């Protein structure tokens, strides 16, 4: 896409400042309405019955007693959700994940649902539903699921990406291979080769707001859904498809969203709420409990990864390979593929090969989690990079710089990088004061890098100018982290007006054209692009109107600093017309003044980050505390620096939680043992230090302002940075994430044991 790049590097009036967000007051006063904050007349309360078994055949569901309970208005099972997907595998997987069809595939899989007049009645009704299960063998570990003796979860899964195609079904949905060059020759040329294996456990996005919606289906086939989602348009399309509704007749309104991080990109229980509403012919409110959120929605993959890196004595990497096994829960995923595409992206490695396996297990269907798949691959690569640096006797940062990807380097997924920021980020690392902070006993420092693609996609905005000259910008990308401020700033910048004169809101699906889900750090990138074009579209209308008002030819009008002016000496006595003045006369100069844009915002700039982490390890308990932490990331262009920093800090905090303590713990019985915030330990305020940030701006040439997505890349480095810091503090390398006290103490013990063995021998 050819863009006008003249704005890159221009002097901005509004962009780069720190304005108050438009939804700020609502959110600090409790007025903002989230998923669970809407009500409708006559609404019912929905509750979902979930399988307590990891894998079981559902022989019978007897709902008769529940149906007879006073106050129960609808009970549904999969029979109420006939398969209308026409064999579209992706859609049938979603349907089956929403409610089990003959088989419960994981602990927490929905089996039936009720709608009743109140919560008490709904709970009571669930207890009256009798499900007869026949237990089936289950598997929850990614490596075990790949073994030939493992129970095969789906008989229709034949590993894709294999030549020849396998003749027997297995739990391996796909094999993906990426890379370039000749790795065998590369390894042959290496002076040092390091091979290591790593494991990472499953984590959850952990948004504080549970999934919640209010569904209302009318007998005439029209329907409304108020829901906390990252993608109201995608929710609309999927729900309409699963329920057989017309897309235009299902209006989805995205509520304020209490965090998503990828977990609210997919439908979970929303189709159930709609089906219940249809059956009861009343509005139905469905709010998940925290336990349901953990057991049945969007965790990320757990992994098992082998990495091999070869280098010359001078530090040049000659070859590298990754073999990565990602479990995607009970349905096929694309997670191994994403691991292949990101693992080595920070480095210019001429001979590289990455193989990813997508594995099915009896766990909930994996959803995207902030730079999905990249943190695990990066943990393996960044840990091994430090080991190789040690083997060749180089400083770990210098070793990375020696091999760093630059403009012209080939990405693991094929293309050649344009201008990118990882080299600058590593140079900033070297300069950063944290690198000189003194480390005491049991303290250590680690550095790691991270990459994420970012995406663009279908986008559509409306910009409407009121008669007082204030501006409404309607966007279709949900604002998860403060994007409304940035988009308002962009519109103000283009129009040349004050930020206070622009109000941005997120439109419902009936009021705006399709917008892709807010994922892949695309919100500000793509809606920002559309906002620029919509503003320019409006400016053309403003110029038309000004020409009329001044009675000059259209092409004599120019737009500068929020004003129309007729250029040329013959017009020098004419006044300038402000946007406000033109807007006031709109009714008599041709009607409403608006700007629109529909765009496929391709050309998202890739994002890179480098982090510095200082830790202290208690050698007697294995406890690791983060002492200091710095994030350096390329933002292309920071529209609102506060919220860019906020993305960096939030992503780093999630990565730290993942690295140290967060994990799904499954029992032998295949049940999740810690579905709550007490034992699924996300970092609390006292666990973290201030997180220092440094925003780099290497403009993305494919965006008019040079914007890159900033939301995801900084969750990628923390796992490796922490591992490297622990190794620096203790001399012991961790191979299993999270690096919890039990695992660290165990590793310290093993190291001591092998050392004493060596000295004894």
């Amino acid at each position, binding site marked *: 896409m050819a863009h006008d790049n003249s704005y890159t590097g221009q002097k901005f009036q509004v962009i780069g400042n720190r304005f108050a967000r438009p939804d700020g007051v609502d959110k600090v006063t409790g007025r903002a309405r989230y998923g669970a904050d809407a009500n409708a007349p006559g609404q019912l309360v929905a509750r979902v019955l979930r399988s307590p078994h990891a894998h079981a055949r559902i022989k019978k569901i007897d709902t008769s007693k529940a149906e007879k309970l006073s106050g129960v208005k609808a009970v549904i099972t999969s029979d109420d959700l006939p398969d209308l997907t026409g064999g579209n595998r992706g859609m049938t997987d979603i349907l089956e994940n929403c409610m089990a069809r003959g088989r419960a595939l994981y602990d927490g899989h929905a089996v039936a649902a009720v709608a009743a007049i109140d919560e008490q009645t709904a709970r009571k009704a669930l207890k009256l539903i009798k499900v007869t299960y026949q237990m089936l063998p289950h598997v929850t570990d990614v490596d075990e699921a790949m073994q030939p003796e493992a129970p095969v979860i789906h008989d229709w899964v034949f590993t894709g990406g294999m030549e020849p195609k396998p003749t027997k079904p297995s739990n391996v949905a796909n094999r993906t291979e990426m890379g370039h060059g000749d790795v065998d020759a590369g390894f042959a040329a290496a002076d040092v080769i390091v091979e290591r294996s790593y494991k990472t456990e499953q984590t959850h996005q952990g948004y504080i707001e549970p999934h919640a919606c209010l569904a209302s289906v009318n007998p005439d086939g029209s329907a409304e859904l108020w829901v906390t989602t990252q993608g109201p348009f995608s929710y609309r399309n999927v729900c309409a498809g699963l329920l057989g509704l017309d897309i235009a007749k299902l209006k989805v309104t995205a509520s304020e969203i209490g965090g998503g991080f990828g977990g609210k990109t997919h439908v979970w229980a929303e189709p159930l709420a709609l089906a219940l509403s249809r059956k009861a012919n009343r509005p139905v409110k469905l709010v998940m409990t925290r*336990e349901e959120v953990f057991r049945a929605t969007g965790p990320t993959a757990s992994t098992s990864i082998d990495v091999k890196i070869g280098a010359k004595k001078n530090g040049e990497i000659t070859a590298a390979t990754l073999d990565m096994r990602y479990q995607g829960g009970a349905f096929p995923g694309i997670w191994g593929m994403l691991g292949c595409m990101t693992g080595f992206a920070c480095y210019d490695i001429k001979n590289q090969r990455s193989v990813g396996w997508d594995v099915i297990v009896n766990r909930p269907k994996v959803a995207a989690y902030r730079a999905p798949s990249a943190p695990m691959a990066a943990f393996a690569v960044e840990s091994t990079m430090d080991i190789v640096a040690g083997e060749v006797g180089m400083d770990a940062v210098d070793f990375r710089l020696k091999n760093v990807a630059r403009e012209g380097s080939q990405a693991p997924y094929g293309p050649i990088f344009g201008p990118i920021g990882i080299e600058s980020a590593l140079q900033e690392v070297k300069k950063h004061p944290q690198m000189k902070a003194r480390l005491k006993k049991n303290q250590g420092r680690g550095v790691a890098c991270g990459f994420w693609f970012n995406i663009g996609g279908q986008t559509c905005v409306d910009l409407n100018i009121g008669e007082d000259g204030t501006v409404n910008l309607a966007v279709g990308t949900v604002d998860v982290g403060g994007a409304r401020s940035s988009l308002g700033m962009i519109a103000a910048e283009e129009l040349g007006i004050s930020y206070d004169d622009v109000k941005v809101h997120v439109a419902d699906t009936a009021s705006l054209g399709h917008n892709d889900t807010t994922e892949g750090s695309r919100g500000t990138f793509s809606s920002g692009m559309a906002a620029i074009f919509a503003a320019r579209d409006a400016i053309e209308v403003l110029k038309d109107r000004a020409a009329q008002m001044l009675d000059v030819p259209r092409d004599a009008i120019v737009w500068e600093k929020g004003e129309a002016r007729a250029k040329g000496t013959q017009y020098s006595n004419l006044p300038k017309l402000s946007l406000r003045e033109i807007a006031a006369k709109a009714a008599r100069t041709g009607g409403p003044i608006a700007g629109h844009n529909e765009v496929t915002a391709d050309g998202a700039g890739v994002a890179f980050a480098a982090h510095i982490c200082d830790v202290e390890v208690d050698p*007697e*308990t294995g406890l690791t505390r983060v002492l200091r932490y710095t994030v350096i990331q390329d933002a292309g262009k920071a529209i609102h620096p506060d919220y860019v920093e906020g993305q960096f800090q939030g992503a780093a905090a999630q990565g730290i939680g993942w690295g*140290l303590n967060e994990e799904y713990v499954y029992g032998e019985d295949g049940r999740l043992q*810690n579905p709550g*915030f*007490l034992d699924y330990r996300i970092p609390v305020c006292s*666990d973290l230090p201030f997180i220092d940030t440094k925003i780099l701006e290497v403009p993305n040439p494919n965006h008019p302002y040079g914007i890159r997505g900033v939301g995801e890349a900084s969750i990628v480095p923390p796992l490796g940075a922490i591992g490297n810091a622990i190794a620096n503090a203790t001399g012991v390398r961790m191979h299993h994430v999270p690096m919890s*006290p*039990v695992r660290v103490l165990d590793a310290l013990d093993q190291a001591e044991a092998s050392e004493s063995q060596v000295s004894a021998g």
Partner: protein
Amino acid sequence: MRYESPASTKEAVALLAQEKGSAFVLAGGTDLLVRMKAELIEPDLVVDIKRIPAMTDIRVTEKGFRIGAAVSAAQLGRHKALCKAWPGVVEAANLIGSDQIQGRCTVVGNLCNASPAADSVPALVAAGAKAVIVGRNGRRTVPVEKVITGPGRTSLEKGEVIEALTLPKPASRTGDAYLRFTPRTEMDIAVVGVGISLALERGTVKKARVCLGAVAPTPILVPAAARALIGSKLDDVALARLATACSAACNPIDDKRGTAAYRIRVAGVLARRAATIAFQRAGGKA
């Protein structure tokens, strides 16, 4: 479910004794309401004891302290005399949950919930706390370590409630401490907890009580650990013997919060650290 908030202990006892269905005492509610939410219990009667005057205050008595059963951990933390006399007990109580939980949770509730990992219990046991139990047949006083009989089980009989806990007036040169291990700094359940109180005479440990939490089905008083300290000036040898005794006394399980081996190991480590703090608080010099 029926909710009652009687004004006297006697009334509370009568309500609990007469209830034919399942009856529960509501003090802070920080465990009870969680269990109700999870549908682990469905009470027919809940008796709120927070409007019973005898249960809602901390009294300084001739013998020491009397802590009402409905006194929140936050109240304990604000009681200067108690903080001075039994800092270990107060710091243990103040480790339970967040400030929000502190505003509600009680040490008696912590005790009656009978979790092996209860934070306040090892400190109370080490301090020699006693429970004042009231039932239809009158009141009895039992050492705190006799209250918990197993995970989630107590020696209270139907209709009995704990009205208060008593703590002795500490002898001079007494110090106590509680340490727990958790992966997070706050908002966590103890993987191991150690409560120690000791009394010195001329710089030497004269008396000691050591109680471990989260390493057995109930918090356990470890006499061998106390013996390791008595007669010592808390030198490295004594501390090593303490650690060994504590680790030896553990009978833990592997669970989602930690492995048995880890608990055994860390029990010794924490015991050493807690003993050092208690020793300093008692005025001892290493």
